């Protein structure tokens, strides 16, 4: 066993798959010579050359569209969006094109591509560089969405995403980049399946279903709730947002009787509301108390530190929500 950072895990997944499969290539801004603004693609241009690691101009629509085209003929592009907020600049290529292609061609074409990059608040980047996008992507069938919280899951899920025959959004949270975690030896190949949740903490009083950075926040909240109030939380790491592993969530709720979904994208019409709606659709009888969700408050993310902290659905807000549910 060794420990790596989240950045290193993502980097390794791309490197390993590029070694294994000639059809994988990278495209994005500042990813080649510089190695990526967040250094996630470092050394890859050196190993794979400019043919497979392509520095682009600031033309997200154009290069996202080119990636879609390359994927339509069987290559496996990995597109970096420097900040996930920029998906709005190239949203047509993602949703009207990549996500719908398989369906509207009656299955004749498919688009095996990965869109990856960092998102999220906590570092004072403000309104246009801190959004979390998973709930918006969840509204478009045809694209899968994954958001790992640990280096191990990051590497395994990214490999699965690259090998998947559909467009997959791979979300990295900027607060996770320098976190470290256990990893198998570099040579040991493994994957983490898309669509499979994982229980990261066992408990019996309440289930928190979450993913990405709010998973770490939920784990911290769980420890403090245990210490301070004796509340025993089970934390389910969804890892995938589309498809959603409701089975694991409901198995947990069968034990705890309480469900809180937490995510950093907007609460309104967010994936948390979806989880609540599905719980009532699929197994309402399991719930001892009303299921709840906690997402980003209805505002965009401000630069000012205390304001940003107030709004994010992090530890303090998670604890408050749990305490309310346990009343």
């Amino acid at each position, binding site marked *: 066993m060794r420990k790596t950072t989240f950045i290193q895990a993502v980097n390794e997944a791309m490197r390993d798959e590029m070694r294994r499969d000639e059809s994988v290539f990278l495209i994005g801004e500042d990813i080649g010579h510089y190695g990526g603004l967040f250094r996630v693609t470092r050394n890859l241009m050196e190993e794979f050359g400019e043919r497979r690691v392509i520095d682009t101009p600031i033309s997200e629509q154009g290069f996202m569209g080119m990636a879609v085209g390359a994927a339509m003929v069987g290559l496996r592009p990995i597109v970096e969006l420097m900040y996930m907020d920029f998906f709005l600049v190239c949203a047509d290529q993602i949703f009207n094109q990549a996500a719908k292609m398989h369906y509207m061609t*009656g299955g004749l074409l498919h688009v095996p591509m990965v869109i990856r990059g960092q998102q999220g608040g906590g570092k004072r980047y403000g309104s246009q560089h801190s959004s979390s996008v998973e709930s918006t992507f969840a509204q478009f069938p045809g694209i899968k969405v994954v958001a790992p919280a640990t280096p191990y899951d990051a590497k395994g899920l990214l490999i699965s995403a690259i090998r998947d025959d559909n467009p997959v959004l791979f979300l990295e949270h900027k607060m996770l980049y320098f976190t470290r975690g256990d990893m198998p030896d570099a040579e040991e190949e493994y994957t983490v399946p898309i669509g499979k949740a994982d229980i990261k903490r066992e408990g019996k009083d309440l289930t928190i279903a979450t993913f990405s950075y709010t998973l770490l926040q939920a784990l911290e909240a769980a420890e403090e709730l245990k210490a301070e109030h004796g509340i025993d939380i089970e934390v389910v790491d969804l890892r995938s947002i589309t498809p959603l592993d409701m089975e694991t969530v409901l198995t947990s709720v069968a034990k705890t009787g309480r469900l809180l979904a937490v995510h950093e994208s907007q609460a309104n019409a967010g994936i948390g509301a979806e989880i609540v709606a599905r719980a009532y659709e699929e197994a309402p009888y399991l719930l001892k108390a009303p299921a709840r969700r906690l997402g980003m408050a209805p505002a965009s993310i401000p630069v000012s530190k205390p304001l940003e902290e107030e709004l994010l659905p992090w530890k303090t807000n998670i604890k408050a929500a749990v305490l309310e549910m346990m009343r």
Partner: protein
Amino acid sequence: MAEPSLKASVPSAKAAVAEPAAVLSTEQLLPMYRMMFLIRRVEESLLELAESGKIGGAMHTAIGHEGAAVGMAAALRKDDYLTCTYRGHHHSLARGMDPKRAICEVLGKAPGFAKGKGGSMHFLDPSLGLMGANGIVGAQVPHAAGMALASKIRGEDRIAITFFGDGALYQGLMHETFNMAQKWKLPVIFYCENNRYSEMTPISRTSSVSDIYQFVRAYGMESVQIDGNDVEVVYDAISKAAERARAGEGPTFIEGVTYRLAGHMAGDLETYRTAEEIEMQRAYEPLTQLHQKLLDRGVSEEELNKIRAEVEEEVQEAVEYALEAPWPDIAEAYTDVYKV
């Protein structure tokens, strides 16, 4: 924001001939005539079906644009990639799509190449290099560039061509694509079917670019303006562009001047142009031009009549086949969301 005279904005297509060409033999031209007439008749039949309510949504015919499609099919290899707009019946038929399956698709019937899911705006057949028509103006253009990039990454010599309209030039992503395609010398041909209208608006009302083919000069991209209604001229221009692309010399922009003889889409009120304007353009339209050219080369009217009669029959059969074809199974509504 003053409106320029509509008349002035519609130059004769003839005026745009870059160079007269007589590059194809009569033997080569005859099947092209056949195909051009077939496209015409399929589309006229589709318009009738639309009028009778059998076709919903947005159906755009390419009546008057056939020169671009038939010239292209003769100039390119079967495995060269092609993407195009919602106005894409002609390219697909020219590349060999079965009219039966084409009409079924427009009607939403099960034998349609996409099981009736895609319809008129999403013609494709990857086995013929047809990688998809698109309902979003301009969206197909980076796709073709991406396919050209794929060829380059793989070291293959398949090239890509993409068709778009004059109106599409004002979608920003076109411009993003031009720059990257030129910078990376991608083997892609950008073919603008300039029919002088963007839906119901003459392009001169919204464009500050006077010569469309000059548009890409800032990028140092090769570009030409041609008579897109003369199938030989089209063949010639695309052949040269393909040669450049395969030789690694990068993209070419072709402005093929043409004219849309039917409405923008089935149901278009056509209040934005006069009957005279359309009439004037009939003299230059591709089928008339090719017809005259063949007569000039000594082909008999009789022989052409025979070809047309055959086509009439084929199209008639295809329409009947499609009308009687079954609807897709309801279960198909839920398939093809994800590739499994």
